[in-house]
Protein backbone atom coordinates (compact mmCIF):
# COMPACT_ATOMS: atom_id res chain seq x y z
CA UNK A 1 0.00 0.00 0.00
CA UNK A 2 2.90 2.30 0.81
CA UNK A 3 4.24 1.75 -2.74
CA UNK A 4 0.86 2.67 -4.21
CA UNK A 5 0.63 5.81 -2.09
CA UNK A 6 4.13 6.76 -3.24
CA UNK A 7 3.10 6.44 -6.88
CA UNK A 8 -0.12 8.42 -6.35
CA UNK A 9 1.84 11.20 -4.66
CA UNK A 10 4.49 11.27 -7.40
CA UNK A 11 1.80 11.43 -10.10
CA UNK A 12 0.01 14.19 -8.19
CA UNK A 13 3.22 16.20 -7.85
CA UNK A 14 3.99 15.80 -11.55
CA UNK A 15 0.48 16.97 -12.45
CA UNK A 16 1.17 20.07 -10.32
CA UNK A 17 4.55 20.58 -12.03
CA UNK A 18 3.21 20.01 -15.54
CA UNK A 19 0.18 22.27 -15.01
CA UNK A 20 2.29 25.09 -13.60
CA UNK A 21 4.83 24.65 -16.42
CA UNK A 22 1.95 24.77 -18.91
CA UNK A 23 1.03 28.14 -17.43
CA UNK A 24 4.56 29.38 -18.20
CA UNK A 25 5.34 27.80 -21.56
CA UNK A 26 1.85 27.25 -22.92
CA UNK A 27 -0.26 30.17 -21.82
CA UNK A 28 2.59 32.62 -21.19
CA UNK A 29 4.71 31.61 -24.19
CA UNK A 30 7.85 31.78 -22.03
CA UNK A 31 10.59 29.24 -22.67
CA UNK A 32 12.43 27.99 -19.62
CA UNK A 33 13.95 24.69 -18.62
CA UNK A 34 14.54 25.71 -15.00
CA UNK A 35 11.24 24.37 -13.62
CA UNK A 36 12.93 21.49 -11.74
CA UNK A 37 15.24 23.91 -9.98
CA UNK A 38 12.27 25.81 -8.49
CA UNK A 39 10.92 22.41 -7.44
CA UNK A 40 14.35 21.89 -5.80
CA UNK A 41 14.43 25.32 -4.16
CA UNK A 42 10.99 24.72 -2.62
CA UNK A 43 12.09 21.31 -1.37
CA UNK A 44 15.43 22.44 0.07
CA UNK A 45 14.10 25.65 1.64
CA UNK A 46 11.25 23.81 3.36
CA UNK A 47 13.49 20.93 4.45
CA UNK A 48 16.30 23.11 5.84
CA UNK A 49 13.94 25.49 7.65
CA UNK A 50 11.92 22.73 9.28
CA UNK A 51 14.82 20.43 10.23
CA UNK A 52 17.60 22.87 11.13
CA UNK A 53 15.61 25.89 12.32
CA UNK A 54 12.64 24.14 13.89
CA UNK A 55 10.06 26.08 11.89
CA UNK A 56 6.66 24.31 11.74
CA UNK A 57 6.29 22.34 8.50
CA UNK A 58 3.30 24.29 7.07
CA UNK A 59 5.22 27.55 7.53
CA UNK A 60 8.37 25.99 6.07
CA UNK A 61 6.34 24.85 3.04
CA UNK A 62 5.06 28.37 2.59
CA UNK A 63 8.63 29.65 2.83
CA UNK A 64 9.66 27.09 0.21
CA UNK A 65 7.05 28.48 -2.13
CA UNK A 66 8.25 32.04 -1.44
CA UNK A 67 11.89 31.14 -2.08
CA UNK A 68 10.95 29.64 -5.47
CA UNK A 69 8.71 32.65 -6.22
CA UNK A 70 11.40 35.25 -5.40
CA UNK A 71 14.19 33.30 -7.13
CA UNK A 72 12.12 33.09 -10.30
CA UNK A 73 11.69 36.87 -10.28
CA UNK A 74 15.46 37.25 -9.82
CA UNK A 75 15.94 35.06 -12.89
CA UNK A 76 13.19 36.51 -15.07
CA UNK A 77 13.66 40.20 -14.39
CA UNK A 78 17.11 40.67 -15.96
CA UNK A 79 16.44 38.15 -18.75
CA UNK A 80 13.06 39.49 -19.84
CA UNK A 81 14.32 43.07 -19.59
CA UNK A 82 16.45 42.24 -22.65
CA UNK A 83 14.38 39.74 -24.60
CA UNK A 84 12.19 36.70 -24.01
CA UNK A 85 14.74 34.53 -25.82
CA UNK A 86 17.33 35.26 -23.15
CA UNK A 87 15.10 33.67 -20.52
CA UNK A 88 15.79 30.24 -22.00
CA UNK A 89 19.55 30.77 -21.98
CA UNK A 90 19.47 32.21 -18.47
CA UNK A 91 17.26 29.35 -17.31
CA UNK A 92 19.79 26.76 -18.51
CA UNK A 93 22.54 28.55 -16.59
CA UNK A 94 20.26 28.97 -13.55
CA UNK A 95 19.23 25.31 -13.54
CA UNK A 96 22.82 24.05 -13.70
CA UNK A 97 24.27 26.84 -11.55
CA UNK A 98 21.86 26.45 -8.60
CA UNK A 99 22.40 22.70 -8.55
CA UNK A 100 26.16 23.35 -8.56
CA UNK A 101 25.70 25.64 -5.54
CA UNK A 102 23.56 23.06 -3.73
CA UNK A 103 26.22 20.42 -4.37
CA UNK A 104 28.96 22.63 -2.91
CA UNK A 105 27.18 23.95 0.19
CA UNK A 106 27.52 22.11 3.47
CA UNK A 107 24.13 22.95 4.98
CA UNK A 108 22.28 21.45 2.00
CA UNK A 109 24.03 18.13 2.50
CA UNK A 110 26.12 18.51 -0.66
CA UNK A 111 25.97 15.88 -3.42
CA UNK A 112 25.09 13.21 -0.83
CA UNK A 113 21.70 14.80 -0.19
CA UNK A 114 19.67 16.13 2.73
CA UNK A 115 18.23 13.53 5.10
CA UNK A 116 15.91 13.26 8.12
CA UNK A 117 13.43 15.82 6.83
CA UNK A 118 10.55 16.11 9.33
CA UNK A 119 7.40 14.35 8.10
CA UNK A 120 4.07 16.13 7.91
CA UNK A 121 0.66 14.65 8.84
CA UNK A 122 1.86 11.07 8.32
CA UNK A 123 2.66 10.28 11.98
CA UNK A 124 -0.57 11.74 13.35
CA UNK A 125 -3.08 11.00 10.62
CA UNK A 126 -1.47 8.31 8.48
CA UNK A 127 -0.19 8.28 4.89
CA UNK A 128 -3.71 8.57 3.50
CA UNK A 129 -3.91 12.10 4.84
CA UNK A 130 -0.79 13.12 2.92
CA UNK A 131 -2.17 11.54 -0.27
CA UNK A 132 -5.33 13.55 0.29
CA UNK A 133 -3.32 16.75 0.84
CA UNK A 134 -1.41 16.26 -2.42
CA UNK A 135 -4.63 15.50 -4.30
CA UNK A 136 -6.29 18.64 -2.92
CA UNK A 137 -3.30 20.78 -3.91
CA UNK A 138 -3.21 19.11 -7.34
CA UNK A 139 -6.89 19.81 -8.01
CA UNK A 140 -6.51 23.35 -6.73
CA UNK A 141 -3.56 24.00 -9.05
CA UNK A 142 -5.31 22.54 -12.12
CA UNK A 143 -8.43 24.60 -11.40
CA UNK A 144 -6.34 27.71 -10.70
CA UNK A 145 -4.54 27.43 -14.04
CA UNK A 146 -7.87 26.83 -15.80
CA UNK A 147 -9.42 29.83 -14.05
CA UNK A 148 -6.49 32.06 -14.95
CA UNK A 149 -6.54 30.92 -18.58
CA UNK A 150 -10.28 31.63 -18.91
CA UNK A 151 -10.28 34.91 -17.02
CA UNK A 152 -9.75 38.42 -18.37
CA UNK A 153 -6.13 38.07 -17.30
CA UNK A 154 -5.89 34.88 -19.37
CA UNK A 155 -7.22 36.67 -22.44
CA UNK A 156 -4.66 39.40 -21.84
CA UNK A 157 -1.98 36.68 -21.61
CA UNK A 158 -3.08 35.31 -24.99
CA UNK A 159 -2.95 38.77 -26.51
CA UNK A 160 0.50 39.37 -25.06
CA UNK A 161 1.78 36.01 -26.28
CA UNK A 162 0.36 36.35 -29.79
CA UNK A 163 1.32 39.96 -30.50
CA UNK A 164 3.45 41.66 -27.90
CA UNK A 165 3.78 44.87 -29.90
CA UNK A 166 0.02 45.31 -30.23
CA UNK A 167 -0.35 44.41 -26.55
CA UNK A 168 2.14 47.11 -25.55
CA UNK A 169 0.53 49.63 -27.90
CA UNK A 170 -2.69 49.56 -25.85
CA UNK A 171 -0.74 50.51 -22.76
CA UNK A 172 -0.23 47.08 -21.17
CA UNK A 173 3.10 46.12 -19.66
CA UNK A 174 4.11 42.81 -21.26
CA UNK A 175 7.29 42.40 -19.23
CA UNK A 176 5.57 42.51 -15.85
CA UNK A 177 2.86 40.18 -17.05
CA UNK A 178 5.53 37.70 -18.13
CA UNK A 179 7.31 38.02 -14.79
CA UNK A 180 4.04 37.50 -12.92
CA UNK A 181 3.24 34.34 -14.92
CA UNK A 182 6.74 33.00 -14.50
CA UNK A 183 6.81 33.72 -10.76
CA UNK A 184 3.38 32.16 -10.18
CA UNK A 185 4.28 29.00 -12.12
CA UNK A 186 7.63 28.72 -10.34
CA UNK A 187 6.06 29.35 -6.92
CA UNK A 188 3.66 26.47 -7.56
CA UNK A 189 6.68 24.29 -8.45
CA UNK A 190 8.14 25.32 -5.08
CA UNK A 191 4.99 24.05 -3.32
CA UNK A 192 5.36 20.74 -5.15
CA UNK A 193 8.98 20.57 -3.97
CA UNK A 194 8.00 21.18 -0.35
CA UNK A 195 5.31 18.49 -0.56
CA UNK A 196 7.86 16.09 -2.03
CA UNK A 197 10.47 16.77 0.66
CA UNK A 198 8.14 16.14 3.63
CA UNK A 199 6.81 12.86 2.27
CA UNK A 200 9.95 11.18 0.95
CA UNK A 201 12.14 12.84 3.63
CA UNK A 202 15.28 12.72 1.51
CA UNK A 203 16.34 15.07 -1.26
CA UNK A 204 19.52 15.17 -3.36
CA UNK A 205 20.65 17.41 -6.24
CA UNK A 206 20.53 14.53 -8.73
CA UNK A 207 16.73 14.31 -8.26
CA UNK A 208 16.33 17.75 -9.85
CA UNK A 209 18.70 17.52 -12.80
CA UNK A 210 18.03 18.19 -16.44
CA UNK A 211 16.24 14.85 -16.90
CA UNK A 212 13.41 16.39 -14.89
CA UNK A 213 13.29 19.34 -17.31
CA UNK A 214 12.89 16.92 -20.18
CA UNK A 215 10.26 14.94 -18.24
CA UNK A 216 8.10 17.96 -17.39
CA UNK A 217 8.40 19.39 -20.90
CA UNK A 218 7.42 15.99 -22.32
CA UNK A 219 4.33 15.84 -20.11
CA UNK A 220 3.17 19.22 -21.40
CA UNK A 221 4.05 18.63 -25.08
CA UNK A 222 2.72 15.06 -25.23
CA UNK A 223 -0.37 15.87 -23.18
CA UNK A 224 -1.20 19.05 -25.05
CA UNK A 225 -0.02 22.57 -24.46
CA UNK A 226 -2.43 25.40 -23.59
CA UNK A 227 -5.10 23.01 -22.41
CA UNK A 228 -6.24 22.29 -18.87
CA UNK A 229 -6.25 18.53 -19.16
CA UNK A 230 -3.28 18.07 -21.50
CA UNK A 231 -0.61 18.28 -18.77
CA UNK A 232 -2.74 16.04 -16.51
CA UNK A 233 -2.94 13.35 -19.22
CA UNK A 234 0.75 13.84 -20.01
CA UNK A 235 1.79 13.47 -16.37
CA UNK A 236 -0.34 10.34 -15.89
CA UNK A 237 0.98 8.74 -19.06
CA UNK A 238 4.61 9.71 -18.60
CA UNK A 239 4.66 8.54 -15.01
CA UNK A 240 3.06 5.25 -15.97
CA UNK A 241 5.77 4.50 -18.56
CA UNK A 242 8.76 4.68 -16.14
CA UNK A 243 6.82 2.60 -13.62
CA UNK A 244 6.30 0.00 -16.32
CA UNK A 245 10.02 0.10 -17.18
CA UNK A 246 11.01 -0.47 -13.54
CA UNK A 247 9.28 -3.86 -13.73
CA UNK A 248 11.88 -4.86 -16.33
CA UNK A 249 14.38 -4.78 -13.43
CA UNK A 250 17.09 -3.07 -15.43
CA UNK A 251 20.19 -1.78 -13.63
CA UNK A 252 19.99 1.92 -12.63
CA UNK A 253 22.82 2.78 -15.08
CA UNK A 254 20.56 1.67 -17.95
CA UNK A 255 17.21 2.71 -16.49
CA UNK A 256 18.07 6.43 -16.24
CA UNK A 257 19.24 6.85 -19.84
CA UNK A 258 16.28 4.81 -21.15
CA UNK A 259 13.86 7.09 -19.30
CA UNK A 260 15.71 10.13 -20.66
CA UNK A 261 15.57 8.72 -24.19
CA UNK A 262 11.87 8.08 -23.82
CA UNK A 263 11.16 11.59 -22.62
CA UNK A 264 13.29 13.44 -25.18
CA UNK A 265 12.38 11.03 -27.98
CA UNK A 266 8.66 11.45 -27.29
CA UNK A 267 8.99 15.24 -27.36
CA UNK A 268 10.75 15.08 -30.74
CA UNK A 269 8.24 12.61 -32.19
CA UNK A 270 5.25 14.61 -30.98
CA UNK A 271 6.78 17.91 -32.15
CA UNK A 272 7.03 16.58 -35.70
CA UNK A 273 4.04 14.26 -35.99
CA UNK A 274 1.47 15.48 -33.47
CA UNK A 275 2.51 18.94 -32.31
CA UNK A 276 -0.89 19.61 -30.76
CA UNK A 277 -0.41 16.73 -28.28
CA UNK A 278 -2.95 14.16 -27.09
CA UNK A 279 -5.40 16.81 -25.90
CA UNK A 280 -5.21 19.30 -28.71
CA UNK A 281 -5.39 23.06 -28.55
CA UNK A 282 -5.40 24.94 -31.83
CA UNK A 283 -2.09 25.45 -33.64
CA UNK A 284 0.07 25.82 -30.54
CA UNK A 285 3.50 25.70 -32.13
CA UNK A 286 2.95 27.95 -35.15
CA UNK A 287 4.34 31.44 -35.10
CA UNK A 288 1.68 34.10 -34.43
CA UNK A 289 2.34 35.86 -37.75
CA UNK A 290 2.18 32.58 -39.63
CA UNK A 291 -1.20 31.89 -38.04
CA UNK A 292 -2.41 35.19 -39.40
CA UNK A 293 -1.12 34.23 -42.85
CA UNK A 294 1.85 36.57 -42.69
CA UNK A 295 5.58 35.96 -42.44
CA UNK A 296 6.90 33.04 -40.43
CA UNK A 297 8.72 33.62 -37.18
CA UNK A 298 11.57 31.14 -37.76
CA UNK A 299 12.60 32.29 -41.18
CA UNK A 300 15.93 34.06 -41.24
Amino acid at each position, binding site marked *: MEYLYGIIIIVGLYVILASSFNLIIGYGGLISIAHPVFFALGAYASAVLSRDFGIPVPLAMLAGMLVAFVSSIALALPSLRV*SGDYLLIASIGFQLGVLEVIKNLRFTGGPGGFTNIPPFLIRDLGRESYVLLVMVVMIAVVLLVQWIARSDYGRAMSAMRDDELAFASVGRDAMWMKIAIFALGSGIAGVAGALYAHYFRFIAPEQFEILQSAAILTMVVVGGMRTTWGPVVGALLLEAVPQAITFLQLPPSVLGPIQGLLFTGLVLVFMFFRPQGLVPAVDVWRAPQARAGKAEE*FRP
Partner: protein
Amino acid sequence: MLDATILLQILWTSLATSSYYVLFAVAFALVLKVTRLFNFAQAAIMTIAFYTAFVAVQWLMWPVWAAFGGMMAVTLAASYLLERIGFEALRKRGVSVMFVFVFTLMVSEFVAYVAMLIFGTWPQTIFPTIFWPATLIGNIAISAWDLPAIATTLGSLAALFVFMRFSRVGQFMVGVADNPDLAELYGINKRQIFLVAMLIAGVFSALGMFLYGTRAQVLPQTGVSLMLFAIAATIMGGIGNIAGAAITAVILGIIQNASILVISSEWQGFLLYLFLFLAIVFFPNGLRLPRRHVRFGTATRELAPSPDTPAAESKA
Protein backbone atom coordinates in the same frame (compact mmCIF):
# COMPACT_ATOMS: atom_id res chain seq x y z
CA MET B 1 53.33 32.92 -2.56
CA LEU B 2 52.17 34.56 -5.73
CA ASP B 3 54.97 35.39 -8.08
CA ALA B 4 55.46 36.21 -11.74
CA THR B 5 56.19 32.58 -12.65
CA ILE B 6 52.86 31.38 -11.25
CA LEU B 7 51.01 34.17 -13.02
CA LEU B 8 52.77 33.44 -16.31
CA GLN B 9 52.06 29.73 -15.92
CA ILE B 10 48.36 30.40 -15.34
CA LEU B 11 48.29 32.77 -18.30
CA TRP B 12 49.95 30.23 -20.58
CA THR B 13 47.73 27.35 -19.44
CA SER B 14 44.68 29.58 -19.90
CA LEU B 15 45.72 30.51 -23.42
CA ALA B 16 46.28 26.87 -24.29
CA THR B 17 42.95 25.69 -22.85
CA SER B 18 41.19 28.60 -24.52
CA SER B 19 41.98 26.96 -27.85
CA TYR B 20 38.92 24.72 -27.70
CA TYR B 21 36.70 27.34 -26.06
CA VAL B 22 37.42 29.63 -29.01
CA LEU B 23 36.43 26.94 -31.51
CA PHE B 24 33.14 26.25 -29.71
CA ALA B 25 32.35 29.96 -29.44
CA VAL B 26 33.11 30.58 -33.12
CA ALA B 27 30.93 27.64 -34.18
CA PHE B 28 28.02 28.92 -32.09
CA ALA B 29 28.49 32.56 -33.17
CA LEU B 30 28.74 31.64 -36.86
CA VAL B 31 25.46 29.73 -36.92
CA LEU B 32 23.77 32.50 -34.94
CA LYS B 33 25.11 35.13 -37.32
CA VAL B 34 24.10 33.38 -40.53
CA THR B 35 20.90 31.53 -39.56
CA ARG B 36 19.85 33.72 -36.59
CA LEU B 37 19.36 30.58 -34.56
CA PHE B 38 20.55 29.77 -31.05
CA ASN B 39 21.70 26.29 -31.98
CA PHE B 40 21.70 24.35 -28.72
CA ALA B 41 21.99 21.21 -30.84
CA GLN B 42 25.67 22.12 -31.18
CA ALA B 43 26.10 20.21 -27.92
CA ALA B 44 24.76 17.11 -29.72
CA ILE B 45 27.22 17.60 -32.57
CA MET B 46 30.04 17.98 -30.03
CA THR B 47 28.98 14.80 -28.21
CA ILE B 48 28.81 12.86 -31.49
CA ALA B 49 32.27 14.14 -32.50
CA PHE B 50 33.89 13.15 -29.22
CA TYR B 51 32.42 9.66 -28.98
CA THR B 52 33.22 8.93 -32.63
CA ALA B 53 36.87 9.76 -31.99
CA PHE B 54 36.75 7.78 -28.73
CA VAL B 55 35.35 4.66 -30.42
CA ALA B 56 37.81 4.93 -33.32
CA VAL B 57 40.85 5.24 -31.04
CA GLN B 58 39.94 3.17 -27.99
CA TRP B 59 37.63 0.48 -29.36
CA LEU B 60 38.64 0.09 -33.01
CA MET B 61 42.33 0.93 -32.41
CA TRP B 62 42.48 3.10 -35.51
CA PRO B 63 45.54 5.29 -36.02
CA VAL B 64 45.05 8.92 -34.96
CA TRP B 65 44.77 10.31 -38.48
CA ALA B 66 42.08 7.76 -39.40
CA ALA B 67 40.18 8.42 -36.17
CA PHE B 68 40.34 12.14 -36.84
CA GLY B 69 39.07 11.64 -40.40
CA GLY B 70 36.28 9.35 -39.19
CA MET B 71 35.27 11.90 -36.55
CA MET B 72 35.12 14.67 -39.14
CA ALA B 73 33.08 12.54 -41.56
CA VAL B 74 30.53 11.52 -38.91
CA THR B 75 30.28 15.08 -37.54
CA LEU B 76 29.72 16.53 -41.00
CA ALA B 77 27.06 13.90 -41.69
CA ALA B 78 25.33 14.72 -38.39
CA SER B 79 25.46 18.46 -39.15
CA TYR B 80 24.06 17.82 -42.63
CA LEU B 81 21.17 15.76 -41.26
CA LEU B 82 20.44 18.30 -38.54
CA GLU B 83 20.18 21.09 -41.09
CA ARG B 84 18.34 19.21 -43.82
CA ILE B 85 15.98 17.06 -41.73
CA GLY B 86 15.62 19.32 -38.72
CA PHE B 87 15.98 23.04 -39.38
CA GLU B 88 14.93 23.04 -43.02
CA ALA B 89 11.73 21.17 -42.20
CA LEU B 90 11.02 23.59 -39.35
CA ARG B 91 11.59 26.62 -41.60
CA LYS B 92 9.15 25.21 -44.16
CA ARG B 93 6.52 24.65 -41.49
CA GLY B 94 6.84 28.20 -40.20
CA VAL B 95 7.09 27.16 -36.57
CA SER B 96 7.68 29.56 -33.71
CA VAL B 97 11.12 30.35 -32.32
CA MET B 98 10.06 28.57 -29.12
CA PHE B 99 9.59 25.37 -31.12
CA VAL B 100 13.10 25.62 -32.56
CA PHE B 101 14.61 26.28 -29.13
CA VAL B 102 12.88 23.26 -27.65
CA PHE B 103 13.80 21.15 -30.68
CA THR B 104 17.53 21.95 -30.45
CA LEU B 105 17.57 21.38 -26.70
CA MET B 106 15.80 18.06 -27.02
CA VAL B 107 18.18 16.94 -29.77
CA SER B 108 21.11 17.71 -27.46
CA GLU B 109 19.55 15.85 -24.57
CA PHE B 110 18.53 12.92 -26.75
CA VAL B 111 22.08 12.46 -28.04
CA ALA B 112 23.45 12.79 -24.49
CA TYR B 113 21.14 9.98 -23.30
CA VAL B 114 22.12 7.80 -26.26
CA ALA B 115 25.77 8.37 -25.29
CA MET B 116 24.94 7.56 -21.65
CA LEU B 117 23.26 4.32 -22.66
CA ILE B 118 26.14 3.20 -24.88
CA PHE B 119 29.17 4.54 -23.02
CA GLY B 120 27.92 4.82 -19.45
CA THR B 121 28.14 7.80 -17.14
CA TRP B 122 31.82 7.60 -16.30
CA PRO B 123 34.31 10.01 -17.87
CA GLN B 124 36.17 9.08 -21.04
CA THR B 125 39.11 10.46 -23.00
CA ILE B 126 40.11 9.99 -26.63
CA PHE B 127 43.57 8.63 -25.80
CA PRO B 128 44.23 6.30 -22.86
CA THR B 129 46.06 9.10 -21.06
CA ILE B 130 45.58 12.85 -20.90
CA PHE B 131 49.01 13.50 -19.40
CA TRP B 132 51.32 15.09 -21.94
CA PRO B 133 55.09 15.47 -21.53
CA ALA B 134 56.04 19.01 -20.57
CA THR B 135 59.09 21.12 -21.35
CA LEU B 136 60.31 23.91 -19.12
CA ILE B 137 60.88 27.13 -21.00
CA GLY B 138 62.13 29.67 -18.52
CA ASN B 139 60.18 28.40 -15.53
CA ILE B 140 57.00 27.88 -17.52
CA ALA B 141 55.87 24.31 -18.19
CA ILE B 142 54.69 23.93 -21.76
CA SER B 143 53.07 20.60 -22.51
CA ALA B 144 53.33 18.78 -25.83
CA TRP B 145 49.58 19.40 -26.22
CA ASP B 146 49.70 23.18 -25.89
CA LEU B 147 51.42 24.36 -29.06
CA PRO B 148 49.60 22.05 -31.52
CA ALA B 149 46.28 23.03 -29.90
CA ILE B 150 46.97 26.75 -30.19
CA ALA B 151 48.26 26.29 -33.75
CA THR B 152 45.13 24.33 -34.70
CA THR B 153 42.87 27.07 -33.40
CA LEU B 154 44.83 29.89 -35.00
CA GLY B 155 44.98 27.99 -38.29
CA SER B 156 41.24 27.33 -38.22
CA LEU B 157 40.46 30.96 -37.48
CA ALA B 158 42.75 32.13 -40.29
CA ALA B 159 41.11 29.69 -42.69
CA LEU B 160 37.65 30.89 -41.70
CA PHE B 161 38.71 34.51 -42.12
CA VAL B 162 40.11 33.87 -45.60
CA PHE B 163 37.01 31.86 -46.53
CA MET B 164 34.57 34.52 -45.34
CA ARG B 165 36.55 37.42 -46.79
CA PHE B 166 37.76 36.10 -50.13
CA SER B 167 35.66 33.14 -51.26
CA ARG B 168 32.39 33.63 -53.09
CA VAL B 169 30.46 31.34 -50.72
CA GLY B 170 31.95 33.17 -47.73
CA GLN B 171 30.81 36.50 -49.10
CA PHE B 172 27.37 35.03 -49.72
CA MET B 173 27.33 33.98 -46.06
CA VAL B 174 28.00 37.55 -44.99
CA GLY B 175 25.28 38.73 -47.35
CA VAL B 176 22.72 36.26 -45.99
CA ALA B 177 23.72 37.18 -42.43
CA ASP B 178 23.15 40.87 -43.15
CA ASN B 179 19.85 40.58 -44.99
CA PRO B 180 18.64 37.13 -46.02
CA ASP B 181 15.70 38.35 -48.09
CA LEU B 182 17.79 40.85 -50.03
CA ALA B 183 20.48 38.21 -50.54
CA GLU B 184 17.84 35.90 -51.99
CA LEU B 185 16.70 38.65 -54.37
CA TYR B 186 20.27 38.79 -55.65
CA GLY B 187 20.09 35.10 -56.45
CA ILE B 188 21.93 33.70 -53.43
CA ASN B 189 20.66 30.26 -52.46
CA LYS B 190 19.90 30.71 -48.74
CA ARG B 191 19.32 27.01 -48.31
CA GLN B 192 22.86 26.20 -49.39
CA ILE B 193 24.36 28.98 -47.30
CA PHE B 194 22.60 27.76 -44.14
CA LEU B 195 23.97 24.30 -44.83
CA VAL B 196 27.51 25.62 -45.33
CA ALA B 197 27.31 27.55 -42.03
CA MET B 198 26.12 24.43 -40.24
CA LEU B 199 28.90 22.30 -41.77
CA ILE B 200 31.61 24.82 -40.85
CA ALA B 201 30.22 24.95 -37.31
CA GLY B 202 30.34 21.14 -37.28
CA VAL B 203 34.02 21.18 -38.29
CA PHE B 204 34.87 23.71 -35.57
CA SER B 205 32.89 21.77 -32.96
CA ALA B 206 34.66 18.53 -33.92
CA LEU B 207 38.09 20.17 -33.83
CA GLY B 208 37.28 21.64 -30.43
CA MET B 209 36.08 18.31 -29.04
CA PHE B 210 39.17 16.52 -30.37
CA LEU B 211 41.36 19.02 -28.53
CA TYR B 212 39.20 18.87 -25.40
CA GLY B 213 38.99 15.08 -25.39
CA THR B 214 42.76 14.70 -25.62
CA ARG B 215 43.29 16.93 -22.59
CA ALA B 216 40.26 16.50 -20.32
CA GLN B 217 37.70 13.86 -19.40
CA VAL B 218 34.32 13.94 -21.13
CA LEU B 219 30.91 12.88 -19.84
CA PRO B 220 27.77 12.58 -21.98
CA GLN B 221 26.56 15.92 -20.54
CA THR B 222 29.90 17.73 -21.06
CA GLY B 223 28.77 19.08 -24.44
CA VAL B 224 25.97 21.09 -22.79
CA SER B 225 28.36 22.74 -20.28
CA LEU B 226 30.88 23.58 -22.99
CA MET B 227 28.11 25.02 -25.13
CA LEU B 228 27.03 27.31 -22.27
CA PHE B 229 30.55 28.72 -22.25
CA ALA B 230 30.21 29.36 -26.00
CA ILE B 231 26.85 31.07 -25.45
CA ALA B 232 28.29 33.37 -22.76
CA ALA B 233 31.21 34.27 -25.04
CA THR B 234 28.86 34.87 -27.98
CA ILE B 235 26.58 37.17 -26.00
CA MET B 236 29.41 39.09 -24.37
CA GLY B 237 31.32 39.27 -27.66
CA GLY B 238 28.31 40.84 -29.31
CA ILE B 239 25.74 38.84 -31.27
CA GLY B 240 26.81 38.69 -34.93
CA ASN B 241 30.44 39.40 -34.03
CA ILE B 242 32.42 36.20 -34.58
CA ALA B 243 35.80 37.74 -33.74
CA GLY B 244 34.27 39.24 -30.57
CA ALA B 245 33.06 35.79 -29.51
CA ALA B 246 36.54 34.32 -30.06
CA ILE B 247 38.31 37.05 -28.08
CA THR B 248 35.75 36.86 -25.28
CA ALA B 249 36.21 33.09 -25.09
CA VAL B 250 39.94 33.62 -24.49
CA ILE B 251 39.28 36.26 -21.81
CA LEU B 252 36.69 34.07 -20.04
CA GLY B 253 39.10 31.13 -20.21
CA ILE B 254 41.83 33.19 -18.56
CA ILE B 255 39.46 34.43 -15.84
CA GLN B 256 38.22 30.91 -15.14
CA ASN B 257 41.76 29.49 -14.87
CA ALA B 258 43.09 32.44 -12.88
CA SER B 259 40.17 32.13 -10.44
CA ILE B 260 42.02 29.22 -8.79
CA LEU B 261 44.10 31.91 -7.05
CA VAL B 262 41.07 33.27 -5.20
CA ILE B 263 38.45 30.52 -5.02
CA SER B 264 38.58 26.78 -4.37
CA SER B 265 38.55 24.44 -7.34
CA GLU B 266 35.06 23.02 -6.69
CA TRP B 267 33.58 26.49 -7.27
CA GLN B 268 35.40 26.97 -10.59
CA GLY B 269 32.60 25.26 -12.51
CA PHE B 270 30.11 27.70 -11.00
CA LEU B 271 31.97 30.59 -12.64
CA LEU B 272 30.62 29.50 -16.01
CA TYR B 273 27.04 30.08 -14.88
CA LEU B 274 28.05 33.38 -13.35
CA PHE B 275 29.55 34.45 -16.70
CA LEU B 276 26.33 33.52 -18.44
CA PHE B 277 24.21 35.46 -15.97
CA LEU B 278 26.49 38.51 -16.12
CA ALA B 279 26.49 38.38 -19.92
CA ILE B 280 22.70 38.48 -20.02
CA VAL B 281 22.26 41.08 -17.28
CA PHE B 282 25.06 43.50 -18.07
CA PHE B 283 26.20 42.82 -21.62
CA PRO B 284 23.17 41.71 -23.67
CA ASN B 285 24.56 43.63 -26.65
CA GLY B 286 28.10 42.51 -25.99
CA LEU B 287 31.11 44.25 -24.52
CA ARG B 288 31.65 47.42 -26.50
CA LEU B 289 34.88 49.28 -25.99
CA PRO B 290 35.22 52.99 -26.81
CA ARG B 291 36.54 53.34 -30.35
CA ARG B 292 39.37 55.72 -31.09
CA HIS B 293 39.13 57.71 -34.31
CA VAL B 294 42.19 59.54 -35.52
CA ARG B 295 41.51 62.26 -38.02
CA PHE B 296 43.85 64.97 -39.17
CA GLY B 297 46.18 64.38 -36.27
CA THR B 298 43.52 64.67 -33.55
CA ALA B 299 42.17 61.83 -31.49
CA THR B 300 38.53 61.67 -30.44
CA ARG B 301 36.86 58.98 -28.36
CA GLU B 302 33.36 57.82 -28.98
CA LEU B 303 31.26 54.79 -28.21
CA ALA B 304 30.81 52.42 -31.10
CA PRO B 305 27.21 52.50 -32.35
CA SER B 306 25.27 49.36 -31.62
CA PRO B 307 24.16 47.52 -34.74
CA ASP B 308 22.16 45.06 -32.68
CA THR B 309 18.74 46.44 -32.09
CA PRO B 310 16.58 44.72 -29.50
CA ALA B 311 14.15 43.79 -32.26
CA ALA B 312 16.89 42.09 -34.23
CA GLU B 313 17.98 40.19 -31.14
CA SER B 314 14.55 39.01 -30.32
CA LYS B 315 14.42 37.42 -33.75
CA ALA B 316 17.82 35.81 -33.23
